[in-house]
C-alpha cells in the first residue's frame, strides 16, 4: 500500500493542473471543469488521509470520507449553478469566453 504522501502528491498534481486550467482557459465551461479537477484533488487528499489517520475525540477517523461526500455534493451544485449562469450569459451576450466578458473593469 502506497504511503499517504504518494496520494498527497497525486492530489497536489491534480490541484495544480486544475489551477492551470482555471488560469489558462478561455471558455467558462472549461474553467468549471478545471475547478472540478481541483475539487477532486481535495477529495483524493481527504480520502487518503481518512484511510491513513487515527480519529480523535467524538469524531471518527473516517471523517475525511464524509467531508469528501460533502465536497462532491457542493461541487455538483456549483457546477449546476455555474452552468446556468453561463447559459444565461450565452443567451445575453452570445459568448462564454471569459476574455470577452469584461464589461466591468478597473
Amino acid at each position: 500500500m502506497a504511503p499517504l504522501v504518494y496520494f498527497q502528491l497525486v492530489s497536489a498534481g491534480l490541484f495544480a493542473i486544475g489551477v492551470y486550467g482555471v488560469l489558462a482557459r478561455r471558455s467558462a465551461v472549461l474553467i468549471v471543469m478545471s475547478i472540478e479537477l481541483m475539487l477532486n484533488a481535495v477529495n483524493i487528499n481527504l480520502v487518503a488521509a481518512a484511510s491513513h489517520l487515527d480519529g480523535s475525540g467524538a469524531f471518527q477517523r473516517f471523517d475525511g470520507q464524509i467531508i469528501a461526500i460533502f465536497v462532491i455534493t457542493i461541487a455538483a451544485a456549483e457546477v449546476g449553478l455555474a452552468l446556468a449562469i453561463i447559459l444565461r450569459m450565452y443567451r445575453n451576450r452570445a459568448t462564454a469566453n471569459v476574455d470577452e466578458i469584461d464589461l466591468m473593469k478597473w
Partner: protein
Amino acid sequence: MTGLTENIYLLAPEFALAGLALVVLAIDLVLPAGRKAITPWFTAAGLLGIIALAIAMLWDRQELLYGGLLGVDAFSLFFKVFFLGLGVFIVLISWEYVDRYLDNPGEYYGLLALSILGMNLMVQARELLTAYIALELLSFVLYVLTSHARRDPRSNEAGLKYILIGAFSSAVLLYGLSMVYSTIGVTQYPEIALALSAPGQLPPALWVGIALLVVGLGFKISAVPFHMWAPDVYEGAPLPVTAYLAIGSKAAAFALILRLVAEGFLPADDRWSQWQIVLAVIAALTMLVGNLVALAQRDIKRLMAYSSIGHAGFILAGIAALAPGSDLATNGVILYLVGYSATNLVVFAGIIAFFNRTGRQQITDLAGLADEQPLVAAAIAAGLFSLGGLPIFAGFAIKFYLFVAVAQGGLLWLAGLAIFSSLISLYYYLQVIRQMYIEPALPQPGIPESNDSPSPGGADTPGAVGELNDPAGAALLSAPAIRTSPSLVGVLAVGLLVVVFVGVYPRPLLNLIAAASRAILPGV
C-alpha cells in the same frame, strides 16, 4: 448518540428561518400575481419574529451541539440577531427596487432568508467543514442574487465572475482544509488549537493548509490580493444585493474568522503571534489598495466596492491584533462590523432611493441631490462622513476603538497606516458629498444609460408603481421627483439613529459585544 441531539431545540431559530424561507418560496408560487407585494412584508415580519424567538430562547445560553460542531453562545446569538436585523433592513431597502427592476421577487426574498440562515450557521460553526458549507449556502445565494437581474448583462457578468472566482477560491479553501485534515486529522477549532499548541515539530503541510484556508476566507472578505472580484460584482449586482454583499456577507465572513481565530488559533499563543504580522501585512495592503483605487472611480457602486475593500483592511487589522487574554480586539472588530454595517446600510439605502428615482448610478449623477432629496442627501453625506471616520457618527467611535485595539496589539504602525488610509478615503467620500451638495443639478438627459436601464416592472408590478414606471424614460425622469418610499425613509431614519447612537454612546452595545466576545475567547 442521544447526547448529540438532546439540546437540538436550541436550533429552533435556524429551523424557523429555513421554514420561513420555504414558506416564502411557496407562497410566491401560490399567490396570484397582483398580490405578491406582501412577500417582502411577510419576510420582514418573519425575520423579526425569529429575532424575538432567538433572543427569548438563546439569551444567556452557552452550549454545544453535535459534539461541538455548533456552538450556541452569546457570540452566535449576537450575530444571529445582527444578521436577522440586517435581513429586515435589506428586505426593506430591496422592496421598491425589486418591485421595479427585478423578476421573481418571491425567490429573491426566499433566497435572502436562506442566506441569513447560512450566515447564522457560519457564526455558530466550530468546525471547518460546517463553516464551509454554511459559507457556501451564503455564497450560493449571493451568486444567484447577483445575477438576479437576468436581462442586465452586467448583473450576468457579475454573477459569472463571482461564481467562477468563488468556486475557485472555495476549492483553494477546501484544499487547505484537506491539508489541515491530512496532517493533524481534525477539523474542529478547539482540536486544531490543541494540535497547534502540541510540542514538537508540526508538518509544514499544516502551515500551507492554514495559508490556503486564509486565502479562501480572504477571498470572502475581499482582502488584497484576493479582492479583484469585488468591484465587478458590486458594480454588476442589483443595488440591494450590492448592499447585502457589502454588509452581510462581509460581516458573516468576519464573524467566522473571529471564531476560527479565537477558538482555533489563539489558544496556541506562540503560533498566533507568528502569524499576526502576516495578517497585518495583508491588512495593510488591503486598506491601501482599496482606498487608493477608490480614488479613481466614477461609479458609485464600484466606489463603494473599493471602499468596502478598504474597510475590510481595517477590520483585518483588528483581527491581526487579536490577543489572548484581552477582549479589546474582538470587541473592536465586532463593534466595527456593527457600526460599519449600519453606516453602509444608510449609504446604500440613500443610493437606492436615488437610483429608484433616476435610474442612474454615476457619482456625477448625484449632482444637486441636496436640493432635490434633502433627506437622502443628508443621509448619504452622514453615512459617508461616518465611513470616513468623523464624529459624531459611528465611524469615528468604531475606528477609534478598533485602532486602539490594533495599537494595543503591538501594531501601532498598522493603526497609523489605517488612519492614513482613512484620510485617503475621505477624499473620495468628499467627492460624492461634493456632487450632492455643491454641484448644481445636471440637466436631466432624456433617456437613462442603457446599462442601467431598468427592466420594466412586468405584470406583477403593483399598479401605483407601475404607473410611474410605465412610460420609462423621459416622461419618468422629467416627472416631479418621486417621493422616497416610506420603507426607505424608515430605514434611513433608523439607520441614521443607529449610526449616531453608536457614534455617541456605544456603551450598551459594547456591553453586549463584550459578552459576545468573551464567549469565544479563551480565558477572558
